[in-house]
């Protein structure tokens, strides 16, 4: 490794102290588990920066040593790149590639080990694609081909700037197509190098339509294009062996540092150093060993507050931006808030008060440019904060605000994008270009990677950090802004918190490390992981592999197919409650290993007629259960199996390294890597099945699933044939259920230890029957096990004989978002009682008690709240929707606090006259509490609770018994009928004469209830004070996700009612 004055070698394991601190090292974790959700205090207190002025000084990056400003390149430059893009510019003298006209120049942004930012211009790389050479094409036709195509492209282009040389080069090469077995023969292909990327599409179109007239030959059919739809950056990275976020080394003497003065030395970016290099002169380090470390990237999180008008979602043309808070990682280089108008000081944070909104926006943009963050994050920044800021700045004519990126004169603009993916469905998002900085919107990450009940920042913080955050209703924000410096300070504290939480979450979920590892494994730039789908990752890996073996990928015209192939089927479950250990045998990485075992690949696919054409003998191919043919690896080894082998091999290695590694930070990196490798391996199968993809191949995907089904069946038969009493085992084994890649076996033994031993044995035994690398593994034992239906089961999960690891529930109403919490909680509690306590009777009693509580109106209303997002106005909904109707109703009551488009509407179902349609029975929970409106308990019981409850109890009690005991027992007969607004009796006496002797007893009952309510009242409201971190200020939080939000309201009402009753006994006297 070259050494130099300012070049720092990536740290070795021996010097862990120098390691860049990407937050999340264990010693930082102690604040996470805190029981006291006192975020405001944390904000105030965690900070280490000494005093205000020092904090502002910490904004810019560490300065380059002065001697480096000249063009001295005698030492190597090493940095970790984080983003790669390209631009069109003039060719630079001394660099390879076209010497005139506009040329594409790649740009890599990165950070050195010391935290200096680098922008590298990589010259001389041109885009290219391939076509299958026409029959009889020779070297002599090359000149004509180039000139003719060049002319056609020039004529096609309407632009004046079109250079003279559009087609830079045409070469003859021997390659073969990936699609279908070709008898291991190469064909002639033309590699066509174009001047700029956009010309590829034009050239391909012209060739496709056969519109190019050649002089030396005639084409009878159009030339089909190969690899014409590969992103230019992906092409460049594959050709230079660069993967996302790896370390790049510019060897000494090979690069030039820009000085900002000369013609070719002008600065184009805001990075600290700009360098130029030829595309074939740099070294790309594979992310292994020392090169797997991470440079000290600057991560900045921010949040904005807008002063909206009552009842209207803020519009950038009308409503001002009043505050922007920013938080930086690694701590504590930034911690500030820009405010409109004065604002009280916040201990530990810098407050920058601005007089006008223009000043606010201007100074913030300037601050971002000074800080020069590598990664921008926040919550919903892509779809709200960034677009709002940019549109607002445009409206106010704030010059230069939109220059947030690293490229000096590129403005950030907002565009709409639609991402369609099988995994996530259709998503509309905004895309903002902030060149050179990666945007990681935490909301998008969570929506993509986690299934949660609610995605509000508050709910997410509670879920992952067990912390509540204060939530101020948007109607209060304007009031706080219009107050004084202290009310604005209060707002600023919220704003800071909202900027701080995304950082905490990124750290806790290790998003940055996991994303970087995914980028490294799949070879795509970090930003692609958020903006692009799954396919680009497979393409990136595929193209790296095909390059090595002279195979080309056809440019597939994606079309909507409607072939449906049979998915994975399951062995029909034998439903029931099993009080015996159930061993689970899993095929590890089933689909990848099927592809490897049977050599399933594009390159090995025998298309119709191919068997005869290439004289393949029956021993040389395999017929899959779906009726497709593939050659065996003895004839040709498939590429996909090779890719999978290397992915799984790398995963094995990462897991082995993980075991050995002691450094906590590297452990996280390795764990992120093995996860990325696993996901990547599994996505290869999906790629072949994606019909609107780059290269679908149903022959592969349907063969894979067909093999899978067959293997599950076979496993069942093998196990049931071997483990029988006839063969000397104590019991006959019974396969009670099988799913995609696992089978559940009841061996009949009554303890976990024996079941484990048999499981291990059976896995090894069955594995022998399959082709390597398919392997059946014994993983876990469920004991007891409640099998409800296909994909619905629950059990205690054992991996060692003496203690269970967890309670595992699949497909049971515990996380579904369209349910109320009561269902999730009750299901979970009942399952715990059944499985952990092994007390089905107790579970039954518990369920009955809850049903009774529901019918007696004793369930906390937050448990009954259903939440739906108001995505469209009611005109756009075809059928009447409960939450839309309710939003309209609320608008009539108070337009100010009514939910707006995009808000989530919480509601409960209230009792209505018989025959009232369900959509009219939705009501605002607060309104219900305040007006004492009766809940439609029966609706909750029959429409929400009954089915899931019966599902778990039927296997235990039997169908009829479950229903009769659960839904028709004594407990359903005591009901509290809350009648609306009955005025309390006006009589001054509490009791009638008849009851006078019982007066004391009655009083005792009421006062004892009163005291329980009082205690709850004080605990609830003091908790809110603790959470907001202030004793002297009013609690303003309206976070409806908070478990105590409705409770604290309800308790006020209950206390007032109870007090009224007690008053009737007369005020106690001395």
């Amino acid at each position, binding site marked *: 490794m070259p050494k130099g004055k300012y070049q720092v070698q990536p740290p070795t394991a021996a010097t862990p102290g120098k390691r860049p601190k990407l937050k999340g090292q264990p010693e930082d974790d102690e604040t996470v588990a805190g029981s*006291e959700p006192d975020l405001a*205090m944390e904000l105030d207190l965690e900070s280490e920066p000494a005093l205000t002025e020092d904090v502002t000084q910490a904004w810019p990056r560490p300065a380059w040593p002065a001697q480096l400003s000249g063009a001295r390149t005698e030492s190597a430059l090493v940095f970790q790149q984080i983003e790669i893009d390209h631009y069109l510019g003039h060719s630079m003298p001394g660099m390879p590639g076209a010497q005139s006209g506009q040329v594409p120049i790649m740009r890599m942004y990165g950070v050195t080990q010391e935290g200096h930012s680098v922008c590298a211009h990589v010259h001389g790389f041109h885009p290219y694609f391939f076509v299958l050479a026409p029959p009889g094409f020779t070297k002599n036709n090359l000149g004509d081909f180039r000139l003719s195509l060049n002319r056609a492209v020039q004529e096609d282009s309407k632009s004046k700037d079109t250079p003279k040389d559009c087609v830079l080069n045409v070469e003859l090469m021997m390659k073969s197509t990936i699609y279908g077995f070709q008898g291991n023969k190469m064909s002639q292909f033309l590699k066509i190098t174009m001047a700029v990327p956009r010309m590829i599409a034009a050239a391909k179109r012209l060739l496709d339509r056969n519109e190019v007239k050649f002089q030396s030959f005639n084409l009878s059919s159009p030339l089909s294009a190969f690899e014409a739809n590969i992103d230019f950056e992906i092409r460049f990275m594959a050709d230079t062996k660069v993967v996302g976020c790896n370390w790049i080394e510019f060897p000494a003497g090979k690069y030039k540092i820009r000085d900002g003065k000369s013609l070719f030395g002008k600065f184009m970016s805001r990075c600290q150093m700009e360098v130029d290099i030829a595309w074939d002169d740099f070294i790309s380090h594979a992310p292994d060993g020392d090169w797997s470390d991470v440079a000290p990237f600057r991560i900045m999180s921010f949040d904005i507050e807008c002063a909206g008008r009552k009842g209207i979602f803020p519009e950038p043309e009308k409503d001002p931006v009043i505050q922007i808070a920013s938080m930086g990682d690694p701590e504590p280089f930034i911690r500030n808030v820009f405010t409109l108008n004065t604002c009280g000081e916040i201990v530990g944070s810098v407050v920058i008060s601005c007089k006008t909104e223009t000043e606010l926006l201007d100074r913030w943009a300037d601050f971002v440019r000074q800080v020069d963050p590598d990664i921008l994050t926040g919550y919903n920044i892509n779809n709200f904060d960034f677009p709002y800021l940019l549109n607002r700045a445009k409206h106010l004519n704030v010059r230069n605000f939109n220059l947030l990126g690293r490229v000096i004169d590129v403005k950030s603009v907002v565009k709409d994008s639609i991402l369609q993916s099988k995994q996530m469905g259709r998503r509309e998002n905004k895309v903002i270009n902030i060149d050179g900085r990666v945007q990681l919107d935490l909301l998008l990450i969570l929506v993509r990677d986690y299934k949660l009940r609610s995605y509000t920042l508050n709910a997410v913080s509670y879920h992952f950090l067990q912390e509540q955050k204060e939530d101020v209703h948007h109607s209060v924000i304007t009031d706080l802004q219009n107050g004084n410096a202290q009310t604005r300070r209060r707002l600023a504290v919220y704003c800071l918190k909202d900027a701080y939480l995304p950082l905490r979450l990124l750290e806790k979920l290790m998003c940055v490390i996991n994303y970087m590892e995914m980028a490294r494994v799949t070879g795509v730039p970090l930003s692609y992981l958020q903006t692009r789908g799954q396919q680009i990752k497979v393409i990136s890996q595929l193209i790296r592999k095909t390059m090595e073996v002279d195979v080309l990928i056809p440019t597939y015209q994606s079309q909507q197919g409607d072939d449906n192939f049979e998915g994975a089927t399951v062995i029909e479950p034998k439903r029931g409650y099993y009080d015996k250990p159930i061993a689970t045998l899993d095929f590890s990485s089933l689909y990848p290993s099927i592809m490897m075992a049977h050599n399933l690949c594009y390159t090995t696919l025998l298309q119709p007629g191919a068997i005869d054409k290439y004289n393949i003998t029956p021993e040389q191919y395999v017929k899959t259960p779906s009726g497709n043919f593939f050659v065996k690896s003895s004839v040709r080894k498939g590429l996909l199996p090779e890719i999978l082998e290397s992915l799984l091999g790398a995963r094995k290695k990462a897991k082995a390294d993980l075991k050995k590694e002691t450094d906590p930070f590297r452990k996280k990196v390795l764990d992120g890597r093995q996860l990325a490798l696993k996901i990547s391996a599994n996505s290869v199968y999906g790629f072949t099945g994606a019909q609107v993809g780059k290269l679908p191949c149903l022959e592969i995907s349907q063969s894979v699933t067909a093999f899978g089904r067959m293997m599950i069946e076979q496993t069942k038969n093998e196990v049931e044939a071997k483990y029988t009493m006839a063969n000397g085992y104590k019991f006959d084994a019974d396969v009670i259920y099988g799913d995609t890649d696992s089978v559940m076996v009841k061996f009949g033994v009554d303890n976990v230890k024996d079941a484990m031993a048999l499981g291990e044995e059976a896995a090894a035994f069955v594995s022998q029957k399959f082709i390597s690398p398919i392997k059946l593994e014994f993983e876990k034992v469920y004991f007891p096990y409640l099998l409800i239906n296909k994909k619905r089961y629950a059990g205690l999960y054992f991996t060692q004989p003496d203690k269970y690891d967890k309670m595992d529930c699949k497909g049971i109403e515990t996380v579904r978002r369209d349910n109320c919490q009561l269902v999730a909680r009750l299901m979970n509690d009942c399952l715990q009682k059944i499985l952990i306590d092994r007390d089905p009777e107790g579970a039954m009693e518990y369920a009955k008690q809850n049903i009774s509580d529901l019918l*007696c109106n004793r369930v906390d209303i937050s448990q009954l709240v259903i939440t739906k997002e108001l995505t469209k106005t009611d005109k756009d909904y075809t059928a009447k929707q409960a939450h839309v109707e309710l939003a309209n109703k609320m608008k009539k009551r108070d337009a100010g606090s009514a939910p707006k488009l995009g808000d989530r509407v919480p509601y409960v179902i209230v009792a209505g006259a018989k025959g009232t349609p369900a959509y009219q029975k939705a009501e605002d929970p607060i309104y219900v509490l305040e007006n004492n409106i009766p809940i439609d308990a029966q609706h909750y019981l029959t429409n929400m609770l009954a089915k899931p409850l019966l599902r778990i109890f039927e296997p235990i009690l039997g169908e009829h018994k479950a229903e009769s005991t659960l839904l028709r027992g004594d407990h359903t007969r005591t009901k509290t009928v809350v009648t609306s607004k009955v005025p309390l009796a006006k009589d001054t006496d509490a009791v009638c004469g008849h009851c006078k002797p019982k007066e*004391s007893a009655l009083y005792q009952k009421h006062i*004892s209830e009163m005291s329980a309510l009082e205690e709850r009242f004080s605990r609830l409201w*003091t908790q809110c004070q603790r959470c907001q971190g202030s*004793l002297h*200020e009013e609690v303003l939080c309206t976070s409806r996700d908070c478990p*105590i939000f409705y409770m604290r309201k309800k308790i006020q009402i209950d206390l007032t009612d109870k007090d009224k009753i007690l008053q009737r006994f007369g005020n*106690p006297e001395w």
Partner: protein
Amino acid sequence: MPGQLLSPPDDVATGDRTEVKYRRYHPTGSCSYVNQSQAFRLSGRDFQRQYFHIYSHRLQAMRARLERQLAQSHPQARVISLSELSGHKQQEVTLIGTLYKHQELKPNILQDLSEDNGLLPPPVHTKYISPEDDLILEDNLQRIRLRGSHINVARLVTGVVCAVWGTEKESGKLEVNDIVFPSGVAAVPRPIPEHTSYVVFVSGLELADPQGASLSAFQLAVDWIIGEAGEMDEQKDNAQIQRVIIAGNSLDESTKDRAEMAKAKYLTKDVAASSIDAIKQLDDFLVQLAGSVDVDIMPGAFDPANQTLPQQPLHKCLFPATNVYSTLHCVTNPYQFELEGTECLGLSGQITDDIIRNSELDSPLDVMESLLRWSHLAPTSPDTLGCFPYAKNDPFILEKSPHVMFSGNQNLFESRVVDVNGSPVHLLSIPRFKTSHSVVAMNLKSLTFEEIHFDASLTCPWLK
């Protein structure tokens, strides 16, 4: 009238009977007893409020007091607000604010709720303190962490208002050099009564089941008080008992029906409150006492009264038998009264217990002394001890020192005289009768205390 029931026999010298009755001592003058607890009475209760009012009022009232105090004692002190702190870097400043103690172990309702589903009961702590606790000063807007050897985190609690001197050495942390609490007004020297008379304190009867061992002991105590038991001299002395104060927890915790509340209604709809029998017993005792002497009954944590401070008097409908006597006084907790010019301030024990849980203080006497020095009767309310959400005042602010301060339901009888605000205060810890079988008699003339133990076992001296 009750006093006449105890007329002495015509001829004391005749007969062998030791059962001699003396005329109950009655103080002269109409103002000899004044209930001063008006501030703790609530009428028309509004629960639509939050707790920030009470804290704000507390800080405002105490701040004024502290500023006056500082003008006297520390004329150089510059009192600033936390928002002005950045203008005084590395300088010693004075801040006034409310303390907030951050305690990891403090019970948290959010956790309790999430553990509702869990199967493990939350761990039970007798103390909610740990070495990691942090003390924070909050003025009306901002907060700062307090540091330094002058701050004894373990002996301070949330809700105390104070002035601190210190320097902000690190951002967000104040290195404290000194701390001052608001002082109250010294008690007016009390008039020494001419006659000797006694006040008897009882607490923690914790009546529950009719077979309790303490039951017969208490009957003995009642007999002793009303002059039905004891030697002749004793009876003579006991006739000088002018008042009995029952300082809370007359009923046992088990009568609180907590578990019943959680049960489904279809199982409990016909179940009566479990306090009914115990209340009946209590009424039986009270009627015996009230027939002879003035009885003040304070509500405690387990009694059928409201839960949060200030606890309102027990309702008279609970005592249909005793109700007819004007000598029964149902009073508040806290309870403030004046007896022959001696000012007394009483607690049923929740406040001292809560502070013991949230600090390293262990003795109720230490706690009471601290309360007097902080000039606040219930600083941990509402944070860890519920109280009514007052809107316009904080009734727990102590304006002046009492002559006697007591706390009921404690483990041991203890007493001590401390000097607060320049006047002596007699502190008394009243033992739980259920475990100690003791009452405390206070000599109102000398302000001395004596623990009187009742043993109802067979070795009882009066059965010899």
